[in-house]
């Protein structure tokens, strides 16, 4: 299983041709309690770097960008009722949306786990 990271603290977990996108453990710690998540529209086509979602902490709103280009195939509706899942389980239950990866080559430009860890040191 491949997980790649952006320097903006999103992760994308590659499952075949689909990517599961969320924010990293480091990002949720930095943001603090998440109180609202604006999910992307199903079926929306995103280009790499497009704003895909917004997570709101008590204090501020933060944009979540698309790590790669593709179409949104699923969103995590559980976050509408329980946005705090991003805090308690950012890389499992707190995933935000799934994307059909348009160009797998874009993944190569993202950070691997070691490079991301280095970034957050």
């Amino acid at each position: 299983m491949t997980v790649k990271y952006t320097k903006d603290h999103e992760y994308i977990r590659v499952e075949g041709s689909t990517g599961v996108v969320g924010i990293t453990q480091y990002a949720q710690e930095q943001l603090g309690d998440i109180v609202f998540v604006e999910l992307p529209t199903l079926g929306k086509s995103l280009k790499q770097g497009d704003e895909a979602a917004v997570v709101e902490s008590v204090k501020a709103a933060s944009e979540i960008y698309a790590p790669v280009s593709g179409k949104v195939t699923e969103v995590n509706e559980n976050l509408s009722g329980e946005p705090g899942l991003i805090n308690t389980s950012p890389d499992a239950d707190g995933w935000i949306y799934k994307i059909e990866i348009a160009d797998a080559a874009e993944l190569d430009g993202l950070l691997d786990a070691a490079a991301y860890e280095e970034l957050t040191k």
Partner: protein
Amino acid sequence: MAEAPTETLKTVVLNDKHVALGGRMVPFAGYSLPVQYPAGIIAEHKWTREHAGLFDVSHMGPSFLMLNERSGDADADHAAAAGLVEPLVCGDLVALKPGQLRYTLLLNESGGALDDLMVGRSPTFPGGLYIIVNAATKDADFARIEAAVSSRATLQRADDNYALLALQGPEAVAALDALVPGVADLTFMTYGTFDWQQDKVFVSRSGYTGEDGCEVLVPVADAGALWDALLTDERVKPIGLGARDSLRLEAGLPLYGHDLDETVSPTEAGLGFAVSKRRREARDFPGADRILREHGGELARVRVGLFVEGAPAREGAEISDGAGSVIGKVTSGGFSPSLSRAIALGFVPPEHAKPGTQLQVSVRGRSQPATVAELPFVPHRYVRKAKP
């Protein structure tokens, strides 16, 4: 995501305590201060509403004003000291009783707020005032006060040689009284001096969370010991600036620089109570013409509370009426941990200010429903009379 400090930040006396407790330090009003501890803003907020939250507000501007030439007549000396400051503010300071505190506003000639502040009459020292101003405006405020009092009184800043702690919540006063006996006898908006260790501390029954509680001005040498002693009480936990903001927002209290600025009058801000009757009748405060016109009903805008559906509407979000015309702006907004919904403060024309009025706010270019709410969002629990 993280804000990079662009200037050298001052640190508070208790900086090492905050870091050791895992406080996330952020720049605020020129100081490095904890926005939250590991518990997080929501847990800290709720703890304060249920128990006792300990805040370090040492960035603020406490000070003492002393009349230079005293007559020996306590009331006359107080009236003389209060009379030096009154021309700057809209409150009746002369009427303060010994140990009484009042919330008031420093105004410019147009009646706009230069700051909001607390002024107390010394319980023991005739001709002495205790003045606490906001952090971001303190240098300008102190300069303004010093210019007004000239050689007749001396302003002694207490922001560098003291720490200012706030202990807030339903269990706050009992927790402080266990360490500093006697503070439970204070009633809301009074203060006194008390012995702590080898020194004196100034304790007021006041705060900015809507809860009962105290603010304690403690000499630097004893500040760490008092902080530690309070935290050994299981009712007390450290609370950061994030929860301080969400608590005051729920309490409907304006934050200077956001809900108040030099264009906003006390009347517009819903702070008409701070413009005292005696001063209104005398028309002897800055911007009296405007403020009295507004008091008579000629108001262009008023501060309201809003329940916001969906995403929180933050400062700057436009407020529209039912027909979609922009009528105002949000000045503070966020998430209410007590109510688990988005709330905001903003300004709208008075005809749109009635609780229940349906409005809209614009968040990221989309309209969301908002309803004018009664303020405070969460009831105040001040203790105006001491328990028998």
